[in-house]
């Protein structure tokens, strides 16, 4: 056996002692960090983590990208809208929202009828591309006129031309203003009082239309105002990001022929999927579904299990079985909306970036899923309220 000199043995002992000291220090730091996280005094630090995660999600979603692909054309034929043709609408939306073309041409020549959901899609698309394409080389969206005067007039009367900054072409046709609430584009007022008045005015317009045209009882109307409209407007005003307007918009149309009022409310936020997975309840969702849930799965889970993406949301705690402490679970908003829609025969559809979910008039789930490309730049709530 080779003899190891005393000097080398002393050196090795010294290295081992230093190594053990490093390991003890590291264990102490990890223990300290765990205790800091556990202790309620440091909840503020945890909230900062979620705020940072949310900001990263916003940055990632709205990162400016080059729009260099050659010109693309999307044709809209016949009746176009989520209200009557869900698969057709999803296909058109996928071809439009995630495009990286420098010029998108929307061909409306053979379009016979446009529903409010399509108008919302156009408006959100214009905001989306404006926010994401590069400042020095912005992408362009153009649309052709339809051969139907009615469609051209609707595009103007619905507020879409004003929203995207296009001049209204002359038309002999105009829509009944009692049956239509156009999209409005308004900058967010500086004072909170003025903003409150603006929100109330827009809400009252919707309530007046629903009261005059819809087949809801007195109690039904009160549930609609207090629960359905309030909770959805709370969501879109909270998650909308002010850019060219307030970051959220609404539109409603009474369709006499189809027998319902189509109400669309939307925001331009990061979507339900990103909101929840960057919030305090992300771990619960990933633990319950799987590590990489799809957009559709997360939206369905959020509605059925009352999960929220709010940064102030509480987490489940417990040793054997995790539960919310009393008074802590706050994510019931959309669940309440869904229950009341089912009670009053209102169909509900939600599109959020790459996910979608649709409930029938009885509140039963009809379809949900995810698409490979974005179908809406933000979150869109579409309600079909039965008319008188």
């Amino acid at each position, binding site marked *: 056996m080779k003899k190891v000199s005393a000097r080398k043995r002393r050196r090795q002992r010294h290295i081992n002692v230093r190594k053990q000291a490093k390991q003890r220090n590291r264990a102490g730091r990890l223990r300290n960090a765990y205790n800091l996280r556990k202790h309620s005094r440091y909840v503020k630090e945890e909230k900062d983590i979620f705020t940072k995660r949310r900001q990263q999600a916003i940055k990632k979603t709205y990162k400016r990208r080059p729009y260099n692909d050659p010109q693309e054309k999307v044709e809209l034929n016949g009746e176009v809208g989520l209200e009557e043709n869900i698969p057709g609408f999803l296909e058109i939306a996928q071809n439009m929202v995630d495009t990286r073309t420098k010029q998108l041409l929307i061909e409306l020549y053979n379009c016979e009828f446009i529903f409010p959901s399509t108008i919302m899609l156009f408006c959100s698309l214009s905001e989306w591309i404006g926010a994401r394409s590069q400042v020095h080389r912005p992408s362009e969206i153009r649309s052709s006129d339809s051969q139907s005067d009615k469609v051209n007039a609707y595009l103007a009367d619905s507020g879409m031309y004003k929203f995207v900054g296009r001049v209204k072409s002359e038309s002999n046709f105009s829509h009944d203003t009692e049956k239509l609430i156009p999209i409005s584009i308004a900058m967010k007022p500086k004072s909170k009082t003025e903003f409150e008045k603006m929100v109330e005015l827009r809400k009252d317009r919707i309530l007046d239309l629903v009261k005059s045209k819809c087949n809801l009882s007195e109690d039904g109307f009160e549930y609609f105002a*207090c629960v359905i409209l309030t*909770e959805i407007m709370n969501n879109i005003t909270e998650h909308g990001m002010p850019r060219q307007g307030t970051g959220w918009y609404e539109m409603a149309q009474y369709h006499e022929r189809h027998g319902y009022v189509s109400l669309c409310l939307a925001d331009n936020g990061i979507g339900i999927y990103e909101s929840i997975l960057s919030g305090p309840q992300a771990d619960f969702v990933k633990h319950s579904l799987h590590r990489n849930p799809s957009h559709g799965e997360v939206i369905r889970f959020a509605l059925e299990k009352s999960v929220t993406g709010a940064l102030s949301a509480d987490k489940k705690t417990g040793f054997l079985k995790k539960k919310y402490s009393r008074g802590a*679970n706050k994510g019931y908003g959309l669940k*309440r909306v869904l229950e009341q829609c089912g009670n009053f025969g209102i169909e509900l559809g939600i599109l959020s970036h790459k996910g979608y979910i649709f409930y029938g008039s009885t509140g039963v789930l009809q379809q949900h899923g995810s698409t490979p490309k974005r179908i809406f730049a933000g979150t869109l709530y579409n309600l079909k309220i039965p008319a008188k």
Partner: protein
Amino acid sequence: MNIKIIDVGNEFYYRLLYRDSNQGVGTHTAEDFREKFLSFLDNPMIWSNSNPCIILDFSNVLEIGPSFANEAFAYFTRYDVSPKRIMQKIVFENISKVKEDIIKRELYDGYKRV
């Protein structure tokens, strides 16, 4: 103990919609309401009996949202207080069937540990 009567619609606001300053417009929130009128109930000793403490008059309230009801009233279930006890201490007057149902649903769901 003197029972306070609060005309919610006039003394606070006629639309009770937002949970906190992050939601919606962020004005007239449930947190503001609780701080202004219900802060004395943020004490576990108060809940030891079922004597009414405060009467909330809803005659001038147009709307109440579930988020507001949850943050303003279901908040007190953290003291392990049943919804029945909360409704005994906080008396709701001149309130419609729908608004009462909205508040009750939030109390019962807030009390559940799910």
